């Protein structure tokens, strides 16, 4: 009966596709992790594939945390070989890795990414300090008496700091799910928060309370969550010259004709100031490699070589062209050696 034949075909096709599942060897390198490192990791992947004539590594943008979770889930071709991260691996994540049999993890610090506060080119660039940023954007700020907090009353930048223009505070930035937001809060807001003496004291005694005060962004409409897409923030700044936007340095680099970055502690964000750390809001970029996969998935060693070669991560390399801030030369050379000898982390690193 044709009906039964049909049913048989359906059952067969389903079971076949499911049975084809358990995977054998994988030919392509699998990379996951941070969306901040993604633009750089993909360039290396593409160049590697092109120049070696090998399958181009597959790069997924899952966010730093999501990448770590996948990476540390286990060893074997069903798990990724490399994860990118816009922060250092956490102690808890490292332990998770160890627990799941991912014993040897090679850490590669590849460079820096600056976070900028930019505004439209038609208005004057701002000159801010991290303390200004904290006082303008925190949900609750210290009152005149030590130890007291009040809801942030500031409406204009001038109220925050008399040297700033009398323009309303309006900042477009990423939502809490974004790594850029985490870094901004930690580097800019906490950096400014620490400059208030009694809060700096509080950090020593009650770390959680300190974090709550320093890391909470105001929610009264002065800080506007503008989504994860940095291009969108750039476009919105063009339409609204009074607003400031928070995004990664590479987007400033690409849109230099429409937006310019604010100076932080009188340092403008550019390649040199971020590289020598005089520009204070910058974060390190990393990737982590599973040593157990080297030699199992073909090409990992070559990929690492390509990533840590001078033509890629050097000060005039193609990653710098894409907006990544390179490490100092001596650091690069010594790190490259560590990577090429496949030296894993020993577990004694000072992880948070």
């Amino acid at each position, binding site marked *: *009966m*044709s*009906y039964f034949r*049909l*049913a048989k*075909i*359906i059952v067969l*096709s*389903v079971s076949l*596709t*499911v049975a*084809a*599942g*358990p*995977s054998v060897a*994988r030919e*392509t390198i*699998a990379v*996951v992790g941070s*969306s901040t490192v*993604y*633009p750089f*990791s*993909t*360039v290396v*992947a*593409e160049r590697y*594939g*092109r120049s070696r*004539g090998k*399958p*181009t590594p*597959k*790069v*997924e*943008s899952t966010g730093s945390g999501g990448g770590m979770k996948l990476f540390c889930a286990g060893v074997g*071709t*069903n798990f990724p070989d490399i994860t990118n991260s816009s922060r250092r691996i956490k102690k808890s994540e490292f332990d998770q890795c160890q627990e799941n049999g991912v014993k040897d993890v090679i850490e590669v610090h590849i460079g820096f990414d600056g976070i900028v506060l930019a505004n439209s080119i038609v208005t004057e660039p701002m000159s801010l300090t991290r303390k200004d940023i904290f006082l303008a954007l925190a949900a609750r700020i210290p009152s005149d008496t030590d130890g007291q907090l009040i809801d942030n009353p500031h409406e204009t930048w001038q109220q925050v700091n008399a040297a700033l223009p009398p323009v309303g505070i309006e900042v477009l930035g990423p939502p809490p799910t974004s790594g850029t937001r985490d870094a901004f809060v930690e580097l800019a807001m906490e950096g400014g928060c620490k400059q208030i003496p009694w809060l700096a004291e509080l950090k020593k005694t009650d770390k959680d309370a300190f974090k709550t005060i320093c890391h909470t962004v105001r929610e009264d409409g002065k800080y506007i969550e503008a989504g*994860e*897409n*940095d*291009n969108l923030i750039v476009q919105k700044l063009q339409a609204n010259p009074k607003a400031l936007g928070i995004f*990664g340095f*590479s*987007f400033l*680099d*690409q*849109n*230099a*004709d429409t937006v310019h970055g604010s100076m932080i502690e009188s340092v403008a964000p550019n390649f040199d100031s971020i590289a020598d750390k005089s520009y204070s809001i910058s974060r390190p970029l990393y990737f982590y490699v599973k040593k157990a996969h080297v030699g199992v998935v073909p090409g990992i060693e070559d990929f690492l070589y390509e990533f840590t070669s001078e033509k890629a991560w050097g000060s*005039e390399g*193609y990653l710098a062209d*894409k*907006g990544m801030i390179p490490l100092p030369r001596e650091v690069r050379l010594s790190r490259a050696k560590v990577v090429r000898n496949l030296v894993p982390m020993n577990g004694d690193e000072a992880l948070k």
Partner: protein
Amino acid sequence: MSKTPQHLEKIQRSLVRRYRAEKAFRWCGMLAVTLGLTAVLVVFADIFMKGTGAFSATYIALDVTYDREVLGIENFADQRQVNTADWEALLKTALRKEFPDVRKRSEKRKLYALASNAAGYDIKDRLLANLRLLGETETIWILADDDIDAYYKSWLGGNAYTARLTDGQLGALQALIDTDRIQLHFNANFLSRGDSREPEQAGIKGAVVGSFMTLILTLVLSFPIGIAAAIYLEEFAPKNALTEFIEVNINNLAAVPSIIFGLLGLAIFINLFHIPRSIPIVGGLVLAVMTLPTVIITSRAAIKSVPPSIREASLGMGASRNQMVLHHVLPLALPGMLTGAIIGMARALGETAPLLMIGMVAFIVDIPRGFTDPATVLPVQIFLWADSPERAFIEKTSAAIMVLLGFLVTMNMSAVWLRKRLERRW
């Protein structure tokens, strides 16, 4: 009931009011339609205006000499020599010859940056395809870098975008413009290549092939299973609490946010069955599960619309229930089922959320050659390009949306056409 003059007057008065109400209602309707249409038109116009640029690319004419010594290849049969040869050197020599005044190392670097870094590979392909060119010089059109492309297109538009170029580069470009050695050509790369982080080399083909493979699997899985389920539920299943429960659940599933199906796919297909991430098989499975409820519901509606008289006549002629369904009901209901399936497919074509969980939101350069190669799909490609810092990706994004819209419109039109063509009314 008698019609007194007062009655008539009352009706007359209410008539005016009722006509007025109808008129207002019509105006509201027309206004709503116009508003919707304008919004769609504005969006389309914006996408088309931004996207058409992606179908042309800037090329620079260069006199390239295929010099064996510059390449350093002794034997062209030796694959390794050919692969490791410095193909870009041919390009650099040609650029130096074109602009002999550039001497400083840093300026030379900027000069080399006029050409796309893929241009060396293009020269390689050209020479290897025709080895007689060795030692010859010819003028060929070289793909320009995306910054040059952005500059030249904005220059043609009257408002040159110079922020990413140096004065030396601008001078060189002006010389090229004056001698007409820089031109816009049709961008074949956009249709014939996979993704790239260099906008001038990025293409849509990888995503189109990935979408195609994923959708084939979705169709092959969801259509037969959906129809079988619909026929069973509609024609054979007893009406009891259990089938009632199933029916409610199918309707619920059709309204579940699509990302839930991605989570389900991650938990079952990847974590339980160990199907590798990012491949069309797992994408097809997830999207099939997602479209199943839609297929079942539309198929049931199609079966329901077949009049009972057909069934009764067939049974009356001595057909078994099975024959009645397969010979009479199914052929009559098939057009409606097909329409439902196509609309389900169109929805699956536009999905990104469930694919995020199963690793199909990824940078994949190689065009997939089978159901087990890593792949991505059209809407994901749009999402990834929209998020890229390089400015030239703006036009790529819009162009990719145009391609996706093209597919969606074709699918929906074919659904309408099928219905018009095959549908029977009673």
